[in-house]
């Protein structure tokens, strides 16, 4: 955190000065460790074992078992008491597998690149339900067209055992599941000494409860694994057990890596989502019509029962007046995905010649995962557009890449037509970024960009204008949707803007939403959304950021007064509804009172919910309001169900749906590991994604040719592939050369000296770096054998003020099955002098 988010770490240090304890779990002793009270060194990729150990420790803790806070939170705010389908079998029963594992058979022949090595049939992971569904209630008005559809989705109530005694209840399953994660097992898997582990467990426990909260922060060290989402889920499970979710100072905090990576997830330039976390219509699902889509994706209860409103308003943002109830609001024009079109399979597709053109804006795949393979893909393109601040490696893969420099490939053999459009920098454009806390902040334009430099908006807008022109005369049905796509963001006063630049405020208006009949009447909150087409809103979660043409709330710059407890609600705007802590209803007890004075955040003041934050709960729903099993939406949930985005209103210890690799986190080894999985016969996740190719081979477990664990990371001084920072002489001078960090023990064994050259190789590639020999790295003892671990920052490439080999030449296209994130934080390599 100190390394990659130093300013966020400011608050950690402030807490430390007030007595907070900082624990750092990391394979390397980093600048964060230097500030920590407790350091838990872990072998890269073993975190689920560590977290699992903590879960077991908590479940066996006497205070935890007897403290009414933990028990109230557990029983009422989580699904601990819910009974799970009798058909469910755990990894404990099946030695590392869950029930339902089968060969992968899915996918369309048109898109065979999904990468699955297996899949789960997940029906047995669901809840047990009472009798039959309540059916479609006659009561209640049906004011909206899709109301009946939503009501028709309702299911019979789940079975619960509030005593948590039933062996099929979530709590008992969780308890059994983590029982083998003993401190000794944790030490054997992670390499972390038992006493250190116990110290961490005790510190976390003693700092959780009514008066205290523990926060966990993570970055891609947790996500970039073939079980990355499970890692986060495991932490969430622990935090739910400790009552640390929805409360001030608690949470599982994602330290995301890019300025608006949150925004680009919310407003997804991601294949599998459309705005506001609605799944992209897919050929693999029952998504033929809008109603089919909503039936498959909406929920009868909780906030997702409003999905028809979100979706119809989104379609209106696409097709405008052409989207009508009569034509399914243009749903038929909307493209469907055919499987996994994420980064990794797309580059496989590219290397196979399936992809002809690419537009790359502010990203640098030429130095990304298995970079040699990605460059192979780039060479197969017919055309490539790179729009960036500086000439990136992706812009010059055809004349300056290592394989060109060493003569193995000639530029003449690369048929790609390449375009480079220089970008305006941040202070030369205006717009909003969404930070890692979901906070939107507007940046204003201070200066004109030089020469040909233009905003990214300009490029996309002008490309659209031209394509609109090219397709204007088409009579093909497949072009109809595009012809209907609304595309007018010209500034009202063109004199003030650079020629051709669209007005970012008009885009923000479309994101925020407006009344379809009068675009100048902006929507003020998502509750105004309608499913009849009368509202246009691209992103329901961003609805409210721009409530009036003269009120851009993202541009607010008014902090709270010093010394006043608050959430700085007048600084920028956070989705949803300017709420700063999600699920903050959980900061109050069942009666709506703060769990403690010290941890006051949101409370029931007798008539409404109030607090330092925008309450994440229906404003006037009393804490003792009972659940109405016959209602839909949040009305179906009780006044003590804080997790309103969940259909059952509680936090999930056991995840009955949404994950494809298991309802509970389980330790698997990374796809490449020097050891056998000490916990189960299953070495790796049985459903991980792997794209087998000659240029994407994996080392077998324990392969003696690649004995060391390697992890990659960022340094404070540089940024991602270096496309921005390595062009800055100031930053370049701070970390001028690529290095590999290794322990003196490993260096001595190979005759490697500090600052001497090292050759690092994996089955995918081989690179050189200078050695940084340091005791900050240490050999681990894992499963009875000594395992060395090395680390490499991945900021270098062949462009920039300082250059160096591409570390991602070493990594593999191997991914997690839920979100296809790759595994660059734990793989294996060999090192030798040279």
């Amino acid at each position: 955190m100190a390394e990659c988010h130093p300013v966020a770490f400011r608050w950690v240090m402030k807490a430390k000065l007030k007595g907070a304890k900082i624990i750092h779990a990391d394979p390397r002793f980093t600048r964060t460790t230097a500030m920590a009270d407790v350091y838990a060194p872990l072998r890269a990729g073993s975190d689920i074992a560590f977290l699992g150990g903590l879960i077991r420790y908590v479940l066996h803790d006497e205070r935890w078992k007897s403290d009414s806070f933990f028990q109230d939170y557990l029983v009422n705010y989580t699904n601990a008491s819910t009974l799970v389908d009798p058909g469910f079998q755990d990894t404990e029963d099946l030695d590392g597998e869950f029930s339902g594992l089968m060969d992968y058979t899915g996918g369309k022949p048109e898109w065979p690149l999904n990468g699955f090595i297996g899949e789960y049939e997940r029906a047995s992971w669901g809840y047990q339900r009472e009798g039959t569904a309540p059916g479609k209630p006659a009561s209640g008005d049906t004011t909206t067209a899709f109301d009946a559809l939503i009501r028709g989705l309702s299911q019979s109530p789940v079975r619960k055992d509030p005593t948590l005694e039933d062996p099929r209840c979530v709590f008992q399953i969780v308890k059994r599941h983590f029982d083998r994660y003993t401190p000794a097992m944790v030490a054997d898997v992670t390499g972390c000494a038992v006493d250190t582990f116990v110290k961490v467990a005790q510190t976390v426990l003693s700092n959780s409860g009514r008066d205290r909260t523990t926060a966990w922060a993570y970055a891609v060290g947790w996500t970039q694994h073939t079980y990355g989402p499970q890692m986060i889920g495991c932490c969430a499970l622990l935090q739910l057990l400790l009552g640390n979710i929805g409360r001030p100072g608690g949470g599982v905090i994602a330290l995301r890596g890019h300025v608006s990576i949150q925004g680009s997830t919310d407003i997804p330039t991601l294949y599998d989502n459309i705005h506001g976390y609605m799944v992209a219509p897919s050929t693999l699902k029952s998504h033929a019509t809008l109603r089919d889509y909503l039936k498959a994706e909406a929920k009868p209860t909780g906030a997702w029962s409003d999905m028809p409103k979100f979706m119809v308003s989104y379609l209106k943002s696409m097709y405008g007046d052409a989207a009508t109830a009569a034509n399914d609001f243009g749903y038929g024009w909307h493209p469907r995905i055919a499987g996994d079109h994420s980064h990794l399979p797309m580059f496989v597709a590219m290397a196979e010649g399936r992809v002809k053109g690419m537009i790359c804006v502010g990203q640098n795949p030429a130095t990304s995962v298995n970079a040699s393979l990605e460059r192979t893909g780039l060479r197969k393109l017919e055309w490539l557009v790179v729009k960036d601040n500086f000439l990136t490696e992706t812009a010059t893969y055809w004349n300056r890449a290592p394989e060109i420099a060493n003569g193995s490939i000639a530029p003449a053999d690369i048929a790609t037509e390449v375009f480079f459009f220089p970008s305006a920098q941040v202070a030369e454009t205006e717009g909003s970024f969404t930070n890692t806390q979901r906070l939107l902040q507007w940046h204003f334009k201070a200066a004109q960009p030089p020469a040909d430099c233009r905003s990214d908006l300009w490029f996309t807008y002008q490309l659209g204008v031209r394509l609109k022109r090219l397709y204007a005369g088409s009579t093909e049905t497949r072009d109809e949707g595009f012809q209907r796509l609304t595309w007018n963001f010209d500034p009202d006063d063109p004199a003030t803007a650079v020629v051709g630049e669209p007005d970012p405020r008009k885009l923000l208006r479309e994101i925020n939403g407006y009344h379809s009949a009068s675009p100048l009447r902006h929507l003020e909150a998502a509750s105004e959304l309608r499913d009849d087409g009368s509202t246009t809103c691209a992103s329901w979660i961003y609805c409210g950021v721009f409530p009036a043409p003269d009120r851009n709330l993202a541009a607010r710059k008014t902090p709270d007064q010093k010394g006043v407890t608050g959430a700085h609600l007048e600084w920028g705007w956070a989705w949803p509804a300017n709420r700063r802590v999600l699920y903050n209803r959980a900061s109050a007890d069942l009666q709506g009172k703060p769990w403690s004075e010290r941890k006051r955040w949101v409370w029931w003041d007798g008539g409404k919910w109030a607090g330092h934050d925008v309450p994440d709960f229906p404003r006037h729903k009393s804490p003792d309001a009972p659940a109405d099993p016959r209602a839909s939406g949040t009305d179906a949930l009780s006044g003590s169900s804080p997790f309103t985005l969940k259909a059952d209103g509680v936090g999930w210890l056991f995840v009955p749906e949404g994950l494809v690799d298991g309802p509970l986190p389980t330790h698997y080894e990374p796809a490449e590991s020097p050891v056998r999985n000490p916990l189960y016969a299953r070495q790796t996740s049985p459903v991980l994604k792997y794209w087998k190719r000659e240029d994407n081979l994996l080392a077998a477990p324990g392969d003696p040719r690649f004995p060391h664990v390697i992890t990659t990371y960022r340094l404070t001084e540089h940024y991602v592939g270096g496309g921005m920072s390595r062009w800055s002489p100031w930053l370049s001078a701070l970390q001028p050369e690529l290095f590999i960090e290794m322990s003196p023990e490993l260096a001595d064994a190979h005759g490697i000296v500090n600052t001497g050259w090292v050759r690092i190789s994996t089955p995918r590639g081989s690179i050189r770096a200078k050695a940084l020999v340091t005791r900050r790295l240490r050999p681990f003892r894992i499963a009875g054998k000594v395992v060395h671990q090395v680390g490499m920052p991945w900021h270098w490439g062949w462009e920039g003020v300082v250059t160096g080999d591409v570390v991602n030449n070493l990594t593999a296209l191997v991914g997690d099955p839920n979100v296809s994130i790759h595994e660059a934080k734990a793989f294996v390599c060999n090192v030798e002098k040279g």
Partner: protein
Amino acid sequence: MAEPMGFFTDTSVCIGCKACETACKAWNQLPAKEGGHPPMSGDSYDNTVRLSGEDWRHVKFIEQFSEDRSAGRWLMMSDVCKHCVNAPCLEVCPTGAIIRTEFDTVVIQTDACNGCRLCITACPFGVIDVNPVSKTAEKCTLCYDRLQVGMQPACAQACPTASIQFGPIAQLKATATARLSQLQAQGEKQASLYGADDKMLGGLNSFYLLLDEPGVYGLPVDPKMPTRNLFWGSVSSVAAAVVLGVVGLFGFRERRAVDESDADA
């Protein structure tokens, strides 16, 4: 006159991010070291290596680990000009380029400096060096220009963890003393303040909280004024001159004696 202002650098909260180094460069428009590509030093994460005419802030990294890693820490410290109350550089500067400002800080007027580099030899902390662009001796000005309009120095403003604190010296000393007691109460027995009292060169207007001996951080234990040697140095010189004069005069006498004996012969 304005109140004396300075830095208190609490190394115990320094995360070694080098924001101070870059913020300093950005505000003072200093060139990058060696055009931005110096060789990797191999000395932990430090590639700035030392303070100089173009690096007015320098974050030091000290790795202290036992062989079995049972004990280990990584100390970091952002070094800068100490703005000594009795400033050796100011004392020796033969052009008057170095001045003491109304904030009790020490500033080199680059338009007056002719690059004799005597100040470099005088500084006990190795702070000053010639800036390759201006070709004059340069160092931290404590953002004199910003101070004059009531702004904070760029480094202190940028520092994410408030390791670098800026303010009136009296206030900083109170903060430092309180922080020291807190650390000592937490068992940091080796923690100490460096340059906070007036024993060291009359007091350092940029003083430190250290977690180990000064030498570990590359700081002199007892920095002195160079003029401490002026008296005895001059005496040795004068004495030698006297001896040589006497030898010369005796030489004439001896020569006369020899001549006379020659004449006698």
